[in-house]
């Protein structure tokens, strides 16, 4: 995974609450086999008119927000479906940082697996960032993960909270599975005293290695 240390980028506003993951990547794009290439589907139903023509009424299609890498939005961003296609789309579109008053749990978790930094700020600070984004064309923010700060070119500096372990993993681009497998001895020891293999009492119509061997 790509490490995240410091990032400066254009801010794009999406002034809506409860943006759900169905809206980020609609169902028809959840039938693919890859993790790549979802950026072109991001916010599909809002972003495109029939024939995949860009919808001029959609905020992110405005010329001034092209090339944005920081998404500023409202509470409960990423609610609904657990589909990781949503953060895949957000990252592939070019976003590296998301700022909102709150995120839905599963989406928030999924962001960290994909090198995305979701930043939670109080409502008033998010309001202020919206004001500045609208007021200053080309409005940029610099995010310093090590220092946990956000700053702009107009003397604003904000600090943001983040769990120290999530921060450490993001800074170093660490692979979760590799970290867990360092504890394989503990997993094995746990499994020895924790027997939970289900016992099958009746015939069940499923493929299994045992049935295949018959």
């Amino acid at each position, binding site marked *: 995974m790509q490490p995240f240390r410091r990032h400066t980028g254009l801010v794009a506003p999406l002034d809506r609450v409860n943006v759900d993951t169905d*809206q980020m990547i609609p169902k028809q794009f*959840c*039938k693919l*086999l890859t993790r790549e290439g979802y950026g072109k589907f991001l916010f599909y139903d809002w972003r495109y008119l029939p024939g995949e023509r860009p919808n001029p009424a959609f905020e992110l299609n405005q010329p001034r927000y092209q090339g944005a890498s920081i998404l500023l939005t409202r509470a*409960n961003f990423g609610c609904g479906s657990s589909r990781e296609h949503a953060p895949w789309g957000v990252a592939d579109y070019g976003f590296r940082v998301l700022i909102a008053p709150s995120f839905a749990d599963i989406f928030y978790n999924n962001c960290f697996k994909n090198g995305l930094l979701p930043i939670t700020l109080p409502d008033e600070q998010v309001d202020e960032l919206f004001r500045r984004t609208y007021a200053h064309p080309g409005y940029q923010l610099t995010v310093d993960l090590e220092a946990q700060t956000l700053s702009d070119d107009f003397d604003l500096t904000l600090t943001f909270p983040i769990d120290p372990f999530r921060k450490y993993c993001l800074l170093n681009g660490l692979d979760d599975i590799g970290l867990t497998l360092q504890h394989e001895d503990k997993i094995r020891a746990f499994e020895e005293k924790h027997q939970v293999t289900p016992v099958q009492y009746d015939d069940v119509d499923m493929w299994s290695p045992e049935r295949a061997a018959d």
Partner: protein
Amino acid sequence: MSKQTMYEKIWNAHLVHQEDGKPALIYIDRHLIHEGTSPQAFAGLRAAGRRVRRPDLTFAVMDHSVSTKDRTLPVLDDNARAQFEALWRNCRETGVRLFDMHSRHQGIVHIIGPELGLTQPGLTIVCGDSHTSTHGAFGALAFGIGTSEIEHVLATQTLPQFKSKTMLIRVTGRRPPGVTAKDIILAIIGKIGVAGGTGHVIEYAGEGVTALSMEGRMTVCNMSIEAGARAGMIAPDDTTFAWMEGRPFVPRGKDFQVAVESWKTLPSDPGARYDTVVELDISQLAPQVTWGTTPGMVADVTGVVPDPASFADPIERRAAERALEYMALAPGTPITSIPLDRVFIGSCTNSRLEDLRMAAQVVEGRRVSPRIKQALVVPGSRLVKAQAEKEGLDRIFKAAGFEWRDAGCSMCIGMNDDVLPAGERCASTSNRNFEGRQGKGGRTHLVSPIMAAAAAIAGHFVDIRGWGVGLVE
């Protein structure tokens, strides 16, 4: 030892490793998989040269994109077919058990887990699907995960997890006739909001919950995620044990008694502390209907579509305005005068036998309104379908003008060809009324199975409390 909640007991029993300042490593007892979110996880595993650690604890099923019509026909959707083939191949290569679309035990993952007895009290259960919260109805800790986490569980049978906060929702009072588990959970979401449970595991308790059947409890836990909570749970009791006994993967005879004794130790200790406590009295609750584009935008069937101007918070007000524009509804419109185009009875929320029995009771001897273009009944599993057919429910639905289909996720998510067309309005027993959820431009109203059935007959929403149905015990 201090007093513990059920969540804390299950958490502690699954703690593999814990270090200060890091998430705990939690053991996963059941990993359920479907075709939609797993292919990238298997691909990642393969690319890293890793194996599935515990195929014996992993069960796969085809449900999201399966046809609900004739499955002997070839799958014409190339993407869906590629996903089915990938799941088939991944299971064969790794030894993961699979219920393919032709299995007589196939069904929606959250229907078949409990039905086959794979879901049991005290277990940790995950699936790459947010409605995994359903399994919490048995006193299991069950939650949805992303694809990277699926890969993690495949490789390690564990997940690094931060401990959640706990929320107790105490449901008091007796459920009035015509009011169902679906109405209770919609009312709860309306009360605490769609982010009210964020960061929490919810435990539902109180007489309003313990009086529910297992089917009703699953409906309640299923929609925990719509309140923002990753997991919802209900303490196992005699209703739970009786429902489970005799299912294919549930211990038998003396082993069953031993299991029950251990399951009885799971409920939260009296006096255990929760971070948040919410109370809801259901003795006067009316049937619920959503009017907007989140499950929290919900009203009594006797009410009206609210005026966005009545929302104090400007952000909520704008959200309500957007929702009414999308839903093509005017403020002040009585809920019962909203005309409908389609009706969908199905999904992991409401497609179990009890749901179909209740809906059939409403439908029996009546006809679907001529203004309804399509009324679908999609059983949650092939076992549900077979049992319903044995009871003659399929004949009741078909005689009334409903289509009787094969099991799957169907029009809840519209990944197969059961799609709600743009501009049409649907009374749906599913869980999400998000923009475009059932089909781009489609307008979804979430309701109980009896409300959906009655709406199909009337062509619009009706207060079914006058119909003398809805208290299946």
